[in-house]
């Protein structure tokens, strides 16, 4: 074919890859987004996968998706709906019918849209598109399975292996459609399959054939190009929230000159934090995969007592199991980072889906008056900064800190400018200035009110800590009523005091607006995009996004009292709203909530705010 397809310049585009959980959609999506990031695009990605590792092939329950949002400008979210939907089978089409934008392109594998495939996905006619009422879409069918088989005809691989490579054909086709040179993808595949040269060769061949198929047959009337983003110059990678948390802890340990310890039990969607840290023996990280969630935190508490920067990682059900031990860390006053990657609840809930419904558990879910620090990361890449800050606060104020992330930012990726550790603040563990002879275990820093952290092995400072109420000074067991009051008060005052050491709340968007959207944690990207959109369309709006929750930034009251309408948007039934009401009872707060196991969509927020 001679003529080249028309290239349409786009500012941004959303692509969603979807197929069976065995179809390799996560890999395909990751490669496509990394490739785009290398080409200078902003990226935000979100994997959406089932809880089952392998549900029956071709069924709705087994559909796994990966959404990529690329842009020539700042990208905050993986996008609401896809401009291009790649579906490997009819089930993927059915599951994603709402995920396609009007006018969007559906690229599908014709071979799987046969009688058996349609039946497995529960279609009753032979035209699934019509059956789903999909009218205003561009259909781009190609026999991906057959073409992959042809591509690997004489490769010597068995049929199963060959068919498994069809994701690479789809990726090649997508690369052509978006004018992504495939030599960069080649580099990623070489890293991925370094130890399987035969598989690497097969994947590369299918990838190239997929690209050439698009190019030669002009599979679509036009292709797309997304320009380079104008972001800060520097060295970038793409990172997901779990990896960023692990890196933040590693960076903090190095900065503090402490050995890093993680005690953790496998739990979706938090386990990758443990995987990342277990791989870092080269940096001396000690990871104990414990026998249960309780042992996860208890080994970490032991390690903290022994002088390590200690952390435990978990999700909601695990946080519930850790409650009593968190109380011990509060009572013994030891540094500890507890990472809760929130998922849909209650109980086992929706393990692979996202939610923000652990907030009240983090704030209050313990027996007794049991204050600690709660902070929440906002985006995949800033998980690094908030993990670092969680560790800094834990060490310097000698307290447990709960760091909340969620399934969305934990598994989603964004572009991350490689940090310079020298630009991060120092972390200094408070050690006693008092000589051992006169030192008492619960002496406090007069300013911060923390007690001092002295590990076993330190000559002369032998002391005992524990879960029983302590004498205000000596740390000996005390049941004295006045002493208990004093200890309850000082434990709270120590946490309140941390407000002096955290950044003030900032307002994003049009600060002069009447309406203030309030959010916290992992909804940051969606809320920013919504505020941008509102302001672009003449609906003035501002955003106050909280990362520090307990204690709240010092200027919280001052900021919130400036606005006529305050709408707290969160992925639960109103937990932060009710917390704010308890802290700032004079301020009138309305709320916008969604509890569907899915992130917000930008248009939902825009529509809600404009309807007020």
């Amino acid at each position, binding site marked *: 074919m001679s003529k080249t397809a028309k290239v349409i310049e786009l500012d941004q585009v959303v692509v969603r890859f979807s197929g069976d959980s065995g179809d390799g959609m996560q890999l395909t999506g990751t490669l496509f987004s990394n490739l785009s990031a*290398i080409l*200078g695009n902003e990226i935000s990605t979100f994997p959406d996968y089932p809880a089952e590792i392998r549900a029956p092939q071709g069924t709705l329950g087994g559909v796994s998706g990966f959404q990529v949002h690329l842009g020539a400008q700042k990208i905050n979210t993986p996008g609401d709906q896809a401009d291009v939907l790649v579906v490997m089978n009819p089930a993927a089409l059915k599951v994603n019918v709402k995920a396609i934008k009007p006018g969007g392109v559906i690229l599908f594998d014709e071979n799987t849209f046969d009688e058996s495939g349609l039946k497995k996905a529960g279609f009753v006619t032979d035209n699934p598109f019509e059956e789903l009422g999909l009218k205003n879409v561009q259909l781009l069918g190609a026999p991906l399975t057959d073409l992959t088989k042809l591509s690997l005809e004489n490769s010597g691989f068995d049929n199963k292996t060959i068919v498994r490579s069809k994701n690479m054909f789809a990726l090649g086709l997508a690369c052509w459609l978006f004018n992504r040179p495939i030599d960069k993808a080649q580099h*990623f595949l070489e890293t991925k399959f370094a130890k399987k040269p035969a598989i690497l060769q097969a994947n590369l061949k299918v990838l190239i054939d997929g690209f050439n198929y698009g190019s030669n047959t002009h599979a679509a009337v036009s292709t797309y190009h997304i320009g*380079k983003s104008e*972001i*800060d*110059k*520097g*060295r*970038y*990678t793409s990172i997901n929230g779990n990896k960023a948390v692990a890196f933040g802890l*590693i960076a903090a340990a*190095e900065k503090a000159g402490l050995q890093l*310890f993680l*005690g953790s039990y496998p739990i979706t969607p938090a386990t990758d934090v443990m995987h990342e840290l277990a791989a*870092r*023996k*080269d*940096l*001396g990280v*000690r990871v*104990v995969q*414990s*026998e249960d969630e*309780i*042992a996860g935190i*208890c*080994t970490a*508490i*032991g*390690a*903290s*007592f*022994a*002088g*390590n920067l*200690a952390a435990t990682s978990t999700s909601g059900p695990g946080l519930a199991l850790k409650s*009593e*031990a968190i*109380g*011990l860390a509060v009572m*013994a006053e030891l540094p500890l980072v507890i990472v809760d990657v929130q998922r849909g609840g209650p109980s086992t809930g929706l393990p692979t889906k996202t939610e923000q419904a652990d907030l009240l558990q983090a704030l209050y879910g313990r027996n007794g008056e049991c204050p600690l620090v709660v902070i929440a990361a906002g985006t995949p890449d800033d998980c690094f900064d908030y993990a670092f800050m969680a560790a800094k606060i834990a060490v310097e104020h000698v307290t447990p800190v709960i760091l909340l992330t969620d399934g969305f930012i934990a598994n989603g990726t964004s572009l991350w400018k*490689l*940090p310079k*550790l020298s630009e991060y603040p120092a972390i200094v563990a408070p050690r006693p200035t008092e000589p051992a002879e006169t030192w008492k275990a619960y002496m406090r820093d007069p300013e911060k009110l923390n007690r001092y952290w002295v*590990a*076993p*092995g*330190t*000559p*002369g*400072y*032998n002391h*005992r*800590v*524990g*879960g*029983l109420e302590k004498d205000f000074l000596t740390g*000996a*067991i005390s049941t004295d009523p006045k002493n208990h009051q004093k200890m309850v008060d000082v434990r709270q005052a120590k946490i309140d005091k941390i407000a002096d050491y955290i950044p003030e709340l900032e307002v994003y968007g049009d600060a002069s607006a009447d309406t203030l959207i309030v959010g916290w944690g992992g909804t940051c990207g969606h809320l920013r995009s919504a505020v941008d959109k509102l302001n672009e369309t003449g609906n003035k709006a501002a955003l106050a996004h909280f990362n520090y929750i307990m204690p709240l930034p010092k200027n919280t009251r001052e900021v919130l009292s400036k606005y006529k309408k305050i709408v707290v948007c969160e992925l639960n039934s109103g937990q932060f709203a009710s917390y704010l009401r308890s802290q700032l009872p004079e301020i009138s707060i309305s709320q916008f909530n969604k509890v569907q196991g899915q992130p917000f969509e930008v248009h939902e927020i825009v529509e809600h705010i404009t309807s007020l």
Partner: protein
Amino acid sequence: MSSQTYTAQDFKSDQYVRWCPGCGDFAILNSIYKAMAELGVDPSQTAVISGIGCSSRLTYYMNTYGFHTIHGRAAAVATGVKSANPDLTVWQFTGDGDCLAIGGNHFIHAVRRNIDINIVLHNNEIYGLTKGQYSPTSKKGLITKSSPFGTIERPFRPAELTFGARGTFFARTIDVDTKGSTDVMVAAAKHKGTSVVEVLQNCVIFNDGAHKEISSKEARAEKTITLEHGKPMLFGADNEKGLMLDGFNLKVVTLGENGITEKDILVHDATTEDNTLHLKLANMTGPDMPVAMGVIRNFATSTYNDELVQQIEEVQAKSKIKTFDDLLKSLDSWEI
């Protein structure tokens, strides 16, 4: 171990010991002081971890570093302490409820990992601090506040549980035998790996006389056998009785009867990997068989903490990543 010598006094804290008068824990505490002095480890290098219960209060009476944690979790906390700083000598003091009921999971997993901690299990077969409920080691039929018609539960045998978790060290002693208790605690501390010392302890208030069959000096001679590695399994006031194998079982024989001499008596080998005979010995009960005391099993193998450190050293020797910055450089990254 430091070259400095210590006395029992060096391990005593300034806290008043608050157990009930006559409690077996007093004697155990004294044995611990003596054992620690004998071992000669600096109190500043010693971490004592406990859970909840009468025995767990022991932490406050030690002039070492100490952590009185929460119910059942001492083994997990101790695992964290030892993993974080393997140079410390780590002891865990616990009771039958704390260790085997609420803490059963942590106990078996600590034992399975063979982390180098010393677990002293005060077994009084009752919950004391909550005022007298049956425990996982209470004898079947025991009448307590929570079993007014007698418990219908089958008790654990701590040794069996330890061996089931592939434990490498198990010893048994009784509170009133300070010398024997001190000896097994010293042996436990010297063992590399998880050491379990079951101390038969009397609770004067809620389960008085639980171990009375074997608690007096005379009864101990006749009804218990103190096993010593490399020595024949003899017992009795004049060492006139011994143990022999009878098929797959153990039997008690008397020297001089039926032509039996000391040469026929089993010699204790605590160090074998195979724990079959250790289990047989640990499970012996009266009235027909003597209760085994002393170090029943002491098998040397690698510990969790040694392997943890070794693995880190091996990876560090090979890896180019020495700092966080190196880690960043190892990532797939690109210039924009």
